């Protein structure tokens, strides 16, 4: 069959049907159910299916989620062919669509490739006018979720922010919008901002100012979450009292120097810390995520803070400078400041810094963390870090580890191999130190995801053999998200290496674990590996 005949790419169905026995169940379904089925197809696919398959005839006009992606019409990065067909498609859909209301309206195209906006006409070109019309269509249909992504498949931040498309001010007066996502566009800040139903606001590569943000937030009395990425024009992000705003995600806003939530009731904050951001004031925040951490940051938090996640990132040879391990003094200072947080989440690099401190025989500070969660591409050189953690956290009650395969592409492998000249599998037999938490506090241990990876069973053995007051150990193949709140991937992508567990493999593993000696008489091991 030629490509043009196919309704869409993707999707799969391994079930084969016996042709002679198949009863037509589709034609008998009522329109409402056929429409519901269509709503799960990608939009263009749904339109085509609806035109070509008689039972679905005409139903596409009642679909309530409209999504237009320019990339469906061209081979990405190989020129702009397909633009005409894309525009034709959009115009026809908008002209023929019937329902008085829609739920979602999404546009994704590369605005800057669509012909240069002419600065003489105040930045409005043909494409701008079209976008204005399309957005007005959506607003007239009382759209609830509006997603305008004008970067297309272009390299991000390739264009000057001053030349971005300006979203019409009518958008900022919509009483129906619940979610607004803007990418590579700007906002016209004339007129009143009144978004009475808006709960989520996301802006990516948008030109802003402190005043515009204040007006957006104060004009949205139902606002719950704000997400700002790669936005310009903000030096200080300051929020005042607000009836509902509870979460803020900030990442890579180039001019940002300070985040001030002193007067705000925001409870959840995720910030990427990098130059020039140097001060974060968040006395009321309860859940804090700090990404990057390549530079020192002045953190002013308060007593309500009880959940911290650190996602240290970094490139290049962060371990060594002139053959000597870096000390990470700032990181240590930050951890000391956060020593009394109840729940801590750590990633690969945090544990690697601990490994450095362990291998350098640094004296352990004492952390009062009660619960620690870590997600690791587990390698031999994480083990000293885990040991350091167990020594430092005197009052640890719950330990959760998500294990993923070690990253074969890790450029630091050789350095670590040289530094860790021990056998990973017998590491725990020769480990020295006083593990106060194992003797007195550790009650719960959870080991998740790729549990049969190397070094996991030895760690389980060590914990079962030394945790005197252990009550519960859970081992399961359940996974977590590899992205943090700011959408940053904090784990090496090893999905190709992750095994599909067969019940035999898991039964084998279960038997090994259940036969390990347990020093705590009350310890119960739950294997949930299916």
């Amino acid at each position, binding site marked *: 069959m030629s490509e043009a005949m196919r309704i869409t790419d993707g999707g799969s*169905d391994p079930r084969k*049907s016996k042709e002679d026995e198949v009863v037509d169940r589709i034609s008998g379904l009522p329109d409402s159910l056929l429409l519901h089925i269509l709503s799960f197809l990608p939009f263009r696919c749904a339109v085509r299916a609806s035109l070509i398959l008689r039972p679905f005839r005409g139903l596409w006009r009642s679909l309530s989620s409209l999504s237009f992606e320019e990339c469906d019409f061209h081979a990405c990065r190989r020129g702009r062919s397909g633009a005409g067909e894309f525009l034709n498609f959009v115009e026809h859909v908008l002209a023929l669509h019937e329902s008085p209301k829609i739920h979602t309206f999404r546009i994704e195209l590369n605005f800057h490739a669509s012909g240069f906006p002419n600065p003489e006409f105040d930045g409005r070109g043909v494409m701008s006018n079209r976008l204005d019309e399309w957005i007005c269509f959506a607003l007239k249909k009382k759209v609830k979720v509006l997603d305008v992504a004008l970067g297309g498949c272009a390299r991000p931040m390739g264009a000057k922010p001053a030349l971005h498309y300006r979203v019409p001010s009518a958008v900022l007066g919509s009483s129906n919008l619940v979610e607004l996502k803007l990418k590579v566009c700007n906002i016209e800040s004339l007129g009143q901002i009144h978004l009475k139903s808006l709960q989520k606001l996301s802006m990516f590569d948008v030109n802003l100012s402190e005043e515009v943000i204040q007006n957006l937030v104060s004009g949205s009395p139902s606002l719950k979450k704000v997400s700002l990425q790669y936005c310009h024009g903000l030096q200080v992000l300051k929020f005042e009292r607000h009836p509902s705003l509870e979460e803020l995600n900030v990442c890579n806003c180039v001019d940002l120097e300070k985040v001030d939530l002193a007067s705000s009731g925001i409870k959840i904050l995720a910030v990427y810390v990098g130059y020039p951001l140097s001060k974060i004031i968040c006395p009321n925040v309860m859940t804090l995520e700090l990404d990057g951490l390549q530079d020192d940051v002045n953190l002013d938090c308060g007593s309500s803070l009880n959940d911290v996640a650190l996602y240290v990132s970094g490139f290049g040879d962060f371990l060594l400078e002139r053959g000597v391990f870096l000390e990470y003094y700032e990181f240590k200072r930050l951890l000391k400041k956060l020593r009394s947080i109840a729940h801590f989440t750590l990633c690969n690099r945090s544990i690697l810094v601990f490994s450095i401190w362990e291998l350098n025989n640094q004296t352990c500070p004492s952390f009062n963390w009660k619960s620690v969660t870590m997600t690791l591409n587990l390698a031999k050189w994480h083990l000293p870090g885990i040991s350091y953690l167990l020594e430092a956290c005197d009052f640890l009650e719950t330990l959760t580890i998500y294990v993923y395969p070690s990253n074969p592409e890790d450029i630091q492998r050789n350095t670590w191999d040289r530094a860790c000249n021990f056998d990973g599998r017998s590491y725990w037999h020769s480990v020295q130190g006083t593990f106060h938490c194992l003797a007195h506090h550790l009650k719960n241990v959870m080991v998740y995801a790729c549990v049969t990876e190397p070094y996991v069973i030895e760690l389980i053995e060590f914990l079962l053999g030394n945790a005197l007051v252990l009550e519960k150990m859970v081992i399961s193949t359940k996974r977590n998200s590899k992205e943090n709140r700011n959408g940053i991937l904090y784990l090496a992508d090893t999905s190709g290496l992750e095994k599909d567990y067969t019940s035999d493999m898991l039964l084998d593993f279960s038997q090994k674990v259940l036969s390990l000696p347990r020093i705590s008489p009350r310890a119960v091991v*739950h294997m949930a590996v299916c």
Partner: protein
Amino acid sequence: MSSSSSSSSSPPCPKKMITLKSSDGETFEIEEIAALQSKTLENMIDENCASTPIPLPNVKGKILAKVVEFCTKHAEAGADAETLRAWDAEFVGVEHAIVFDYILAANFLEIPTLLDLACESVAEMIKGKTPDEIRKFFNINNAFSPEEEEDVRRQNQWAFE
């Protein structure tokens, strides 16, 4: 498989059971809390019509058994999203005729989670197939003849470019 020796805390009040009767006369018991997944059953329970077996003339025994299984699973406390998703995928990994039965039962009983799951499953069957393959797969009668289809494509070129 799961092996554990733990004591779980049991709910303070005894689980109230509702009896459902399928179109072919089979009866099934379902916990009230699981039955609440169905708006239809929830209304009946509210109006106190739930003391005698509830007749469901639109749902065969074979399907009702599975629906009860679905609602019970989704009413379980402490089920994490990832595991539930995997369970759901297996639940609809059956002959497509049965998936249609789920759609009709979920529609009649107003169980949005099951309706979405089953409809999405049918959508997956449609994706990636040519129109011809779709018609054969579902054996859609009164489909367009090749000439009629050609007409449709020509009149709606904008959708097929």
